[in-house]
């Protein structure tokens, strides 16, 4: 049995804004085990970034505020760690790469320095050794001419290369968990595949756990072990990749599965998206958050929030359709093809 590295329990997080309290994350729980890849999937605005940035406490407070819950890393409750304490974990135990490689590197600093400062922040080694290590890292992530690249500035690299540099920075101190917040969304399709493959390789090689955030279920098919589907600040369904792809239980997951571009399909090029918009997180609905967009919405859905129902040891979903009194409905569309 693999050890659980990270556990987030009943976590609620809000932003205090002039318009009111934005309830970005509304009571979520998830965990990450050693060496596994957890994918968090959901439409833009569903609270994925807020959820994972909280693990590293990257959101300034104010305006952010923890309402309740715990974050437990290797058995230690880090929910109320000070910045000082977090600095020991950031970059060393937990690392993060972001969506836009164009803006996540400092434009006025050589990439070598950006890698080296991370290394030397955690390991008191001479600069020359750190340089060697940086070269090794750049080689590992597939940057050509790693030695010369050290003295180049970010703007001289393409988006894909910059994301590789970001990965090098993130992996510099051999973190146990790598959090990747939509790492390929800003890249073209070919580059996307390359970056995902690179991450997969590095994961195998170093045994790093990955928390992969994406709004595209297609991206995770190859990578993830487990998937958590987020909607309007909640995790509405979670399960292994097989469970989510072959026996999804939540209407929102069904919608997401239909919006994957299918190369083999006749509908190629025509992306199906779920009609409607997510609810306002300042005044979230009291029942199911998906009710206003759900084809199967029943009276109870608007009134009472569905409880989480266990389907297997690893799968659970929050939907009134899973209640024994509810009518039985089938997913409408074809079985989703195997992706990997």
């Amino acid at each position, binding site marked *: 049995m693999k050890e659980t590295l990270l556990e987030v329990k009943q976590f609620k997080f809000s932003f205090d804004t002039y318009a009111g309290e934005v309830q970005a994350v509304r009571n979520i729980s998830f965990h990450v085990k050693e060496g596994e890849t957890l994918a968090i999937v959901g439409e833009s605005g569903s609270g994925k970034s807020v959820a994972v940035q909280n693990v*590293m406490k990257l959101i300034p407070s104010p305006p952010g505020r923890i309402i309740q819950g715990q974050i437990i890393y290797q058995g230690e409750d880090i929910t109320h760690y000070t910045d000082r304490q*977090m600095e020991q974990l950031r970059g060393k135990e937990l690392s*993060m790469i*972001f969506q836009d490689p164009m803006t*996540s590197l*400092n434009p*006025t600093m050589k990439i070598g320095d950006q890698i080296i400062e*991370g290394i030397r922040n955690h390991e008191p080694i001479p600069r020359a050794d750190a340089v060697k290590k940086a070269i090794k890292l750049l080689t590992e992530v597939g940057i050509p001419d790693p030695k010369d690249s050290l003295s180049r500035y970010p703007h001289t690299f393409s988006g894909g290369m910059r994301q590789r540099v970001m990965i090098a*920075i993130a992996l510099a101190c051999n973190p146990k968990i790598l959090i990747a917040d939509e790492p390929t969304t800003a890249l073209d399709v070919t580059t996307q595949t390359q970056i995902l493959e690179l991450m997969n390789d590095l994961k195998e090689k170093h045994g790093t756990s990955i928390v992969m955030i994406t709004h595209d279920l297609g991206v995770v098919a190859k990578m993830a072990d487990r998937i958590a589907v987020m909607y309007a600040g909640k995790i509405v369904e979670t399960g292994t990749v097989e469970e989510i792809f072959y026996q999804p239980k939540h209407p929102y997951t069904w919608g997401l599965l239909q919006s994957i571009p299918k190369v083999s399909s006749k509908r190629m090029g025509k992306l199906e998206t779920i009609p409607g918009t997510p609810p306002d997180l300042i005044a979230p609905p009291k029942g199911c958050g998906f009710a206003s967009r759900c084809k199967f919405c029943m009276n109870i859905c608007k009134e009472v929030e569905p409880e989480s129902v266990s389907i297997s040891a690893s799968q659970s979903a929050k939907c009134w359709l899973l209640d024994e009194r509810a009518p039985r409905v089938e997913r409408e569309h074809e079985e989703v093809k195997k992706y990997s």
Partner: protein
Amino acid sequence: MSVIRFIVKRFIISIVTIFLLVTLSFFLLRTLPGNPFQTETLLTVEMQEKMMSYYGLDKPLFEQYLTYMQNLLQGDLGYSIKYRNRTVNEIIATSFPVSADLGLRALAVALPIGLFLGVLSARKRGKLTDYLCVLLSVIGVSIPSFILGSFLQYIFALKLQILPMAQWQTEWHTILPTIALALSLLAILTRVMRASMLEVMSQDYVKTAKAKGLSEGKIVRRHQIRNASIPILTMLGPMVTSVLMGTFVVEKIFALPGLGQHFINSITGLDYTVTLGLTVFFGIFMVFANFLVDIAYGIVDPRIRLMK
């Protein structure tokens, strides 16, 4: 290679700019009504005309322009029309050092304090410290320097009698005018630096730096201040030029023999040669200052370096 080309290109552009500046100023000045001798009531019209011809002002305008340009090429800015027997070169040579001295002192005070307060204010956004800095910068920008100058004189010279009222003689004399000039500079610098820091603080790369585990101090020092200074560099060229060229108001209040008075007096008195000479001097200085700023810009921001 690109550095040399950049410098050569900038040099040529500068020459053309200065040439256009002189030419435009020359002809525009002459469209002002009246002549330099009108105001001197003792002179008859006949005498005025004599004077005009003595200074060559009766010749065709274009001929005067050619003569002026010829002299200018040899660095000769000509005689002042009002200060008999004084060349414009002499006027600049005696007044500029005073203005530049005051200007440098004011900058030396305003730059470090302004940048520091800007950073502090942004880091403490929404806290009392921030409000105090913002208040100071609003005061600094909105109080005219003649009011501030007079106020300082009243307090420190008249009431407390610990500093001299005016003149430019000892170190003590420099304190009040320096403060009077520095406060508004400081205010502008604080405001720009604060805005710039706030923008940098919300950038993704700052989040990256934080995710590496860097401490707040290191993030501010290595990633924020340098990038936030770029807008400051841009405004430094014109700021340094105008400050070193002398400020009429402050120099007037403290009776300083600087350059500022000549800008105003020569225009109201239609002292063409002085106005033109100062314009040329100002222009060259500005071009040079901007040139230095551009080089500094390239050092701080590598993206700029490549584009040129």
